[in-house]
């Protein structure tokens, strides 16, 4: 899809010939994440579909207790310190951002009255200034009014390095000013096509100035309210035991009418994923359970309990195989996989193409992941019905053999293919995790048939995903030929997701392997496209650039996408909630209710 076609499509939406949903679906099939597609329309001045929350309760309260189960409990309740989703979700019960992301990638106002657009003057022409208008009737749980001073304070608080806030990345490069008590101006250093990051979603939750003002910078850890949140959300804080329980009760002054439905909320932590699923699906002790990393087979069996259902929430996470483009077996200047080397065999595109044909994604989905891992060819992924028709995946051992034969890789006496004395023998590493070891075995078996020998290696997750500079087995070092893991799309915008393949992000000894490009794949066109996308204000052109980047990395087989990993959640049959793969589970907690 090129720029012209995109523009045509946007016009069709404007004229009502194409629905928003279809538009987003079409773009998704070209590898454009839903939020970007939504933003495209927004930028083109096409109003957001009025968000239908589906909330049917007619009065506030009276819903009894909402009991949710997170098998890893929240450990802290200050959103600026929230590292994992468990902490972000715990904080989100009490704190709210200016806007959140729904599952279709629409930006939905929460504490803002409307989403800034070029049409309503919220987005400046040069893309450097965003104006947020705040709701005027919002009160903190202690009765103090919520104003622009609070928003500005959050920027000051989070962008101060001494605070050591984990949200600093979203705030350090912007300037925030209060225009008046209910208007905030956010200025970006450079034109920012994706501006919806500070004050939006999980890193955008606002904490009250009047309670945290005295605890900026180095004193941040002393704030008593780190453990006793006072927010604007639908539930007020009751008590908190780190790692175990977060309790809240109804906020009768909540700024949206007739909400929330439940009188209390309990977020219990701890235990394991299987029994969490059991407590919702089989015994009904809890209404909702988070992140069920359980084999689908078990989920299906538990679902027959008849108390709940499994919701598969699509997001951007993907399980994929990376190739090493440098030589992991030669040390240069005290560094293996040095960018000064070239991989002896994997730099041959035929070999990578053959490997791609040898990964039986359909079987991996069918026998290992079930509904929780959808076979795919694309790096940017979304729900099954939106899967790209551009990049197809194929499992074909004969074709792989043919390719290798034609390219001169001849089978030796030991069954392993060789060319110019170089053998097709690879070390294939991943973390210790049952589905991954099963996947490794499936790939190894197929590769063997084609004359490629794979040595399987499994590294403990705490080592594999660590940043330990001294350990050779971390995934960023990639001291072997290929590896497999899930990369998460923590942000709905693909910019940070796609920087995994730019040449200035090489993971090297010099940057303590903190660079994100561990394949050390290099492509000038990709680099240029990325640089262009970073500053491209025209969302249509920018989208075309991301599409191109996705195709470049997929079609050059720098990686092999294996399965997209949607998020499985269990919920009571009667519980109604709005899910989103782009925001916290609680992004629309105010709309949760139970059917009679």
């Amino acid at each position, binding site marked *: 899809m090129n720029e012209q076609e995109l523009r045509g499509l946007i016009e069709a939406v404007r004229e009502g010939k194409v629905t928003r949903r279809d538009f987003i679906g079409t773009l998704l099939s070209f590898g454009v994440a839903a939020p970007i597609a939504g933003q495209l329309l927004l930028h083109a001045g096409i109003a957001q579909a009025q968000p239908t929350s589906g909330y049917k309760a007619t009065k506030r309260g009276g819903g009894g*207790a909402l009991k949710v189960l997170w098998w*890893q*409990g929240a*450990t*802290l309740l*200050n959103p600026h310190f929230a*590292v*994992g989703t468990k902490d972000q979700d715990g904080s989100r019960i009490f704190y709210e951002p200016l806007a959140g992301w729904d599952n279709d990638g629409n930006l939905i106002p929460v504490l803002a009255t409307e989403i800034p657009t070029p049409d309503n003057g919220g987005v400046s022409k040069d893309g450097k200034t965003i104006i947020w208008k705040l709701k005027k009737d919002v009160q903190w749980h202690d009765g103090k009014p919520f104003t622009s001073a609070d928003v500005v304070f959050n920027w000051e608080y989070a962008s101060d*390095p*001494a605070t*050591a*806030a*984990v949200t*600093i*990345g*979203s705030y*350090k490069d912007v300037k925030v000013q209060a225009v008046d008590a209910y208007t905030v101006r956010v200025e970006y250093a450079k034109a920012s096509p994706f501006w919806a990051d500070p004050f939006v979603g999980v*890193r955008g939750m606002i904490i009250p100035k009047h309670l945290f003002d005295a605890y900026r910078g*180095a004193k941040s*850890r002393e704030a008593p309210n*780190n*453990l006793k949140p006072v927010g604007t959300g639908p539930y007020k804080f009751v*008590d908190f*035991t*780190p*790692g*175990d*329980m977060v*309790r809240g009760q109804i906020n009768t002054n909540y700024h949206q009418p007739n909400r929330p439905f439940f009188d*209390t909320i*309990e977020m*219990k*932590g*701890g*235990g*394991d994923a299987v*029994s969490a699923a*059991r*407590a919702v699906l*089989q*015994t009904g*002790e*809890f209404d909702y359970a988070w992140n069920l990393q359980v084999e689908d087979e078990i989920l299906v069996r538990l679902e027959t309990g008849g108390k709940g259902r499994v919701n598969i929430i699509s997001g951007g996470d993907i399980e994929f195989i990376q190739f090493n483009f440098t030589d992991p077996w030669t040390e240069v200047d005290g560094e293996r996989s040095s960018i000064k080397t070239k991989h002896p065999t994997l730099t041959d595109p035929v070999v990578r193409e053959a490997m791609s044909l040898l990964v039986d994604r359909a079987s991996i989905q069918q026998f290992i992941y079930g509904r929780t891992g959808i076979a795919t060819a694309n790096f940017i992924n979304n729900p099954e019905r939106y899967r790209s028709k551009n990049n197809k995946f194929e499992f074909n051992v004969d074709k792989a053999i043919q390719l290798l034969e034609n390219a001169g890789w001849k089978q030796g006496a030991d069954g392993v293919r060789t060319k110019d004395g170089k053998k097709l023998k690879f070390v294939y590493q991943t973390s210790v995790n049952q589905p991954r070891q099963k996947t490794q075995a499936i790939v190894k078996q197929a590769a063997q048939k084609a004359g490629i020998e794979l040595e399987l290696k499994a590294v*403990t997750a*705490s*080592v594999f*995903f*660590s*940043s*330990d500079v001294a*350990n050779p087995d971390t995934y*960023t070092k990639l001291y072997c030929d290929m590896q497999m893991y899930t990369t998460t799309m*923590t*942000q709905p915008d693909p910019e*940070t*997701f796609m*920087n*995994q393949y730019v040449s200035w992000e090489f993971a090297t000894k010099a940057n303590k392997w*903190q660079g*994100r490009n561990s394949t050390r794949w290099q492509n000038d066109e990709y680099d240029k496209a990325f640089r262009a996308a970073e500053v491209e204000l025209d969302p249509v052109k920018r989208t075309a650039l991301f599409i191109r980047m996705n195709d470049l990395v997929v079609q050059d087989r720098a990686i092999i996408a294996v399965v997209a990993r949607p998020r499985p959640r269990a919920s009571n049959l009667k519980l109604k909630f709005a899910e989103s793969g782009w925001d916290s589970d609680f992004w629309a907690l105010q709309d949760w209710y139970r059917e009679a």
Partner: protein
Amino acid sequence: MSFPGTYVLRRLLIALPSLLGISVVLFTVLALAPGDPFGELVSNPNIPAEVAANLRLKFGMDDPVAVRYLRWLAAMLHGDWGFSFASRIDVSDLIMQRLPTTIQVIGSSQLLALLIALPVGIYAATRPYSLFDQVAGTLTFIGFSLPTFFTGLLLILVFSIELDWLPFVYRSDIAASGWRFYWEHVKQAIMPVAVLGLFQAASWTRYVRSAALDVIKLDYVTTARSKGLRERTVILKHVVRNALIPVVTLVALQLPSIFGGAIVTEQIFRVPGIGSLLISAILANDTPVIMAVTFVLSCLVIAFNLAADILYGWLDPRISLR
């Protein structure tokens, strides 16, 4: 028996270097173990590398192990147990939050174990190789052969899933008042207490039985019987008192676990005790919490060892403490 003052003093002095040694070993092992409490920050592309570096600096994690150890030791001597990386609060607060639940659940399971082990063990010893003894012997054998994670799951399957009588998620905060509050607490504690208590009871029963059997054969028991004392008096006054000496030490040595919690059982039933705190701290690489819990536990083990020795001398004056 006079109070063995010098003995206690000497034992305490011996305990000091062993505690120091334990702390050095624990600290070094934790420092050498792979994993980084801020690993999640480093691998998240939206968080600049400086944040993790800043935090490491703030918590002094880049200093050499020896320096960190001395700093930890100095703080511990002042009663400061450290500061949790994961929750960003004092470790002592975290532990205090968990302690009541641990004591309730583990304490009542130990009590349950005693209430079963004492009568069953003694009764079985008075009638060795009777039908009762055989049945009790078989059951205790099954009891301590089955690991708690198995019996825990079994109870959940039967009482929560099949019969739907008991909840299997333990909640320390129950939103109820009056008798319902207590009832809910009892209901949710039944399974974890039963799992732990029965397991402990099984092994204790065998100890009590064999200790009582040893004593029952002694001459003074025969003398007591030939004096014409009632069997009840013989058993309770003469046999049990002496038979309990080894059992008391055994129980005393078991007491530190009331602090340590039961990792597996707490995890299965989601009991928010010290054990589950320890396991989540290990998973999060939250070293100050791991260090505090394990170190306090080793202190208690040493202290109760000493207490058991002293108790031993008091129960059996023939044993002198020098």
